[in-house]
């Protein structure tokens, strides 16, 4: 559709791309390329997505094995439809790879995929590699990993734990991976990042070397918008995107959400994420994951559950209403925060616009105050969010289908 020389897509890009940096268009415009595949003998139809341009098609959830030395759980996962087992050279000091090796022994090599990771010594305060980070050391670790796994190649080999642009380009690692790939020791080159993810992801795309990115991604990340944008760019460049830390949000031991299924689905609403590798350790958790693999759509109850989460900095207003008496302009802050969530989480612009318009706000909301007296109990930067969300009034209704 064109209007005054500017199509809906272009308008949205130019107007909303700068919408606090959080909105990204493709979630609305592009349906994820996915299909349902029967799991033999299980009566389950699992949602699969292609892993970028690797040619691999994966169920939307696979297994992070890092916490499990329970071979029967790994077997149950593979028998239920999980395809990719995610591990690392360093997990359990190598025992994790050994356990996987014992499980896959005797299984057809094309019935499962393995992603493993090799890290080299870094100064963890700076994220820079130290003297021992050599090509030889990388290759030695890879060979040991293959030995533990009892296979001649892994499907994805990740350059593990990168937090800086220059480390993405660390020549000894790139050389080692190039040699190992040539020798057939892995199929796809990957990189993993737990912190400073956007910088790492953008740098990985720029190298044109990596084919898969494994990144932390969840709604609790303070910089989730930047991560989301970086993921979108990488996916559009053809890289496979694997998500992690979807439930725990990084450091938390217990799931920090009341509904792990909702947290997983939240990540999968992003069509640029091709699969997630949560680290489950119980059969019940496996069942939860399988249910999500069958139906990735957030239902209303799950949306409400997410909305109610007490520990969701940045997106969800807790509705405590403590702010109401603090704003000198008497703005309906909880409603505005809800509108903000409609845009940046539900990606439902129409709902957000209707709500904002219904509030009858003054034209320059928050524009006249130099200092905001509102102290949000959840720590929201209230003024910034309001200034951001009220701009939705300027978008013509016909552009928000």
């Amino acid at each position, binding site marked *: 559709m064109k209007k005054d020389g500017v199509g809906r897509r272009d308008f949205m890009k130019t107007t909303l791309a700068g919408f606090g940096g959080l909105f990204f268009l493709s979630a609305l415009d592009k349906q994820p390329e996915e299909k349902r595949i029967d799991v033999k003998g299980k009566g389950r139809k699992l949602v699969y997505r292609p892993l970028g341009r690797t040619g691999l098609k994966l169920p939307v959830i696979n297994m*992070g094995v*890092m*916490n*499990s*030395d*329970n071979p*029967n*759980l790994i077997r*149950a996962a593979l028998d239920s439809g999980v395809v990719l087992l995610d591990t*690392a050279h*360093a*997990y*359990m*000091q*190598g*025992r994790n790879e050994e356990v996987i090796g014992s499980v896959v022994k005797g299984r057809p090599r094309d019935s499962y995929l393995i992603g493993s*990771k090799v*890290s080299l*010594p870094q100064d*963890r*305060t700076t994220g820079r590699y130290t*003297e*021992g980070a050599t090509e030889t050391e990388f290759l030695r670790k890879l060979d040991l990993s293959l030995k533990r796994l009892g296979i001649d190649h892994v499907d994805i080999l990740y350059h*593990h*734990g990168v*937090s800086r642009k220059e480390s993405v380009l660390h020549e000894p690692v790139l050389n080692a991976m190039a040699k190992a790939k040539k020798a057939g020791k892995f199929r796809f080159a990957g990189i*993993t990042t*737990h*912190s400073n993810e956007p910088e790492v992801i953008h740098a990985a795309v720029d190298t044109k070397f990596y084919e898969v990115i494994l990144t932390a991604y969840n709604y609790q990340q303070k910089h989730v918008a930047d991560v989301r944008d970086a993921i979108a760019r990488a996916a559009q460049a053809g890289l496979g995107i694997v998500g*992690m830390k979807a439930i*725990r949000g*990084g*450091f938390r*031991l217990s799931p920090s959400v009341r509904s792990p299924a909702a947290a997983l689905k939240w990540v999968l609403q992003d069509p640029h994420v091709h699969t997630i590798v949560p*680290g489950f*350790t*119980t*059969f*019940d958790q496996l069942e939860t994951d399988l249910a999500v693999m069958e139906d990735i759509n957030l239902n209303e109850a799950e949306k409400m559950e997410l909305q109610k989460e007490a520990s969701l900095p940045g997106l969800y207003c807790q509705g405590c209403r403590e702010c109401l008496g603090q704003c000198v302009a008497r703005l309906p802050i909880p409603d505005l925060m809800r509108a903000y969530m409609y845009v940046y989480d539900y990606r439902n612009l129409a709902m957000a616009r209707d709500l904002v318009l219904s509030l009858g706000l003054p034209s320059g909301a928050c524009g006249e105050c130099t200092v905001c007296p509102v102290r949000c109990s959840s720590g929201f930067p209230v003024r910034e969010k309001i200034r951001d969300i009220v701009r939705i009034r300027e978008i013509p209704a016909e552009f928000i289908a």
Partner: protein
Amino acid sequence: MRVLGLILGILLLPVSSPPAQGLQFPDIPGWKQSGEVQSFSPKTLYEYINGAADLYLASDFEELKVAEYVNEKKASVIVEAYRHRTPRDAFGIYSQERLPDGNFLEIGAQGYSDKNILNFVYGRYYVKLNSYNTGTDDREALQAIAIMVAEHSGEKGGLPSLLSAFPPEGKKGNSEKYITRNFLGYAFFHSAYTADYELAGKAFKLFLIEAADENECKSILQQYLRRIKKPERGITERRYTVADPHHGVIDLFWKGRYIWGTVDLADADLRTKILKSFEAHMRPGKGALDLKSVMRFTLF
């Protein structure tokens, strides 16, 4: 009000003990520390060990301190001291990473070396040393540094005393583990001690679950029997032989606040023999453990 506050403050003083000094990285002859000691909390552990952090966090990890020692030959040894909430938690992560064919050493409660690494557990600390460019002096250098670090840890004690309940016959050396959560993939089993066995050509595993009290044991069994669709009303202290859909035959015995049993052992006669042997080691006066007197959290 101020007087009341002062009184309260004084009253509270003896209750809040000063923080323990904890492990100090010692001066080591011939080596000097390079750079500052780095610290990592549960929130930042990922920055240091990436996804491996999950297992440490499951073992109630509290703090990591990292120091690097270097010598004139440009060799370096990195010492990582992971402090956990209890000695049992530290043993848990140590045991899950332990290399069974390592070169075992009497450092701390137990340690071992392998190529350029040396790991040991001592009280609440799990300490890992890695050497670089130490050449032929690898093991000597690591051991010398490890011994001094252990001496400066402020910790004491040995391995968990419950491990002595495992029958010695057929037990594989250094195969004992403490699984901190979700033993066998079931949340209700929570934690368990395990050991690997090989007897009469059969490889299997024994486990021992320690509950808070008899009621918890009963609850664990109720949940388990319900899970495998064999619910029972009158659960009593006795032997239970069940067909687990994921693990095959599990034979277990409940007594007091302990449940012990076998995994991966199909031979019924051998299971009976093993369970009896286990019970003998759990009986007061017969073995290392007194079912009534062993207190939780004082196992070291």
